[in-house]
């Protein structure tokens, strides 16, 4: 498994977890106070930071883990470099991800037209980003496993 494929697997698990975390924090706050007063900015910064850091740390951890497992089985641990195929799969996934970003962008513009509270606008965009990331990751993994 190449490093880029590993990072896609990690992304597939990290993104939904972070989304659940973010929404459980802000929606529990929304139950107690009006949405205009919710401090959603700090949870959002944490969420984005955890996605980025989580993917990097998870990729490194899984690479180390599988190298250790390979060594335990008595095989030579190897770190596969990315190649042209990785690059093409990366592009394929990024193109697939546009479906949800497109819908999300349009939804956010419409919310702006109705002057909805920034909390809802930012959360909609965050959700669209997570959906796009997960959708893109699934498309990439399908391409890795079954070809284009």
């Amino acid at each position, binding site marked *: 498994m190449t490093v880029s494929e590993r990072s896609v697997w990690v992304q597939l698990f990290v993104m939904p977890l972070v989304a659940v975390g973010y929404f459980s924090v802000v929606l529990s706050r929304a139950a107690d106070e009006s949405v205009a007063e919710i401090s959603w900015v700090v949870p959002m910064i944490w969420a984005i930071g955890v996605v980025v850091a989580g993917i990097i740390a998870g990729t490194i951890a899984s690479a180390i883990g599988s190298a250790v497992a390979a060594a335990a089985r008595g095989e030579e641990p190897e770190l596969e470099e990315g190649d042209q195929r990785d690059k093409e799969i990366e592009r394929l996934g990024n193109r697939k991800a*546009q479906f949800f970003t497109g819908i999300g962008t*349009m939804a956010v513009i419409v919310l702006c*037209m109705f002057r909805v509270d920034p909390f809802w606008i930012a959360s909609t965009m965050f959700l669209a980003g997570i959906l796009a990331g997960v959708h893109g990751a699934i498309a990439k993994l399908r391409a890795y496993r079954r070809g284009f």
Partner: protein
Amino acid sequence: MTTRDIPAEDISFTEGAQYAGLALSVLSMLAYLAIVLTRVFTDDVSVTKVAWQGPMLLVVAIGGALYGIGYGIAGIRHHRPVEDARDKEIQRYGGAINGGLVGLTVAVSIVLLALNVEPFWVAHNLFLGSWFASFVSTVGRVAAYREGIPS
């Protein structure tokens, strides 16, 4: 043979769609800017209070519908598969450029929302940012058709 000598049939369907899309998207954006900027200067209100919602929806709807109808009619008259492997690869290449720029635009929007600016600016950041992303990715695709995909 220089690029100029290539007869029209040698342009693939998808490449033609890039040129049509480019023309349509530039015209749509010019129409939107013309309407809204006229309102900015003639209506006696601050910029963010201008009625931008209607023109934006109209321009997106009309531009999208024209492209869809044109693509559909051309596709029916084309009789052959619209994409080959090279077209697909170029589509993906452009899509990746688009994805990167849209991601940046979304990040900027979240910052704008965190700073609690007027929804007008959030919507325009997204509108202009996605337009710019699609413009750059289409130009990138056209360049890839002519000069190959940069590796």
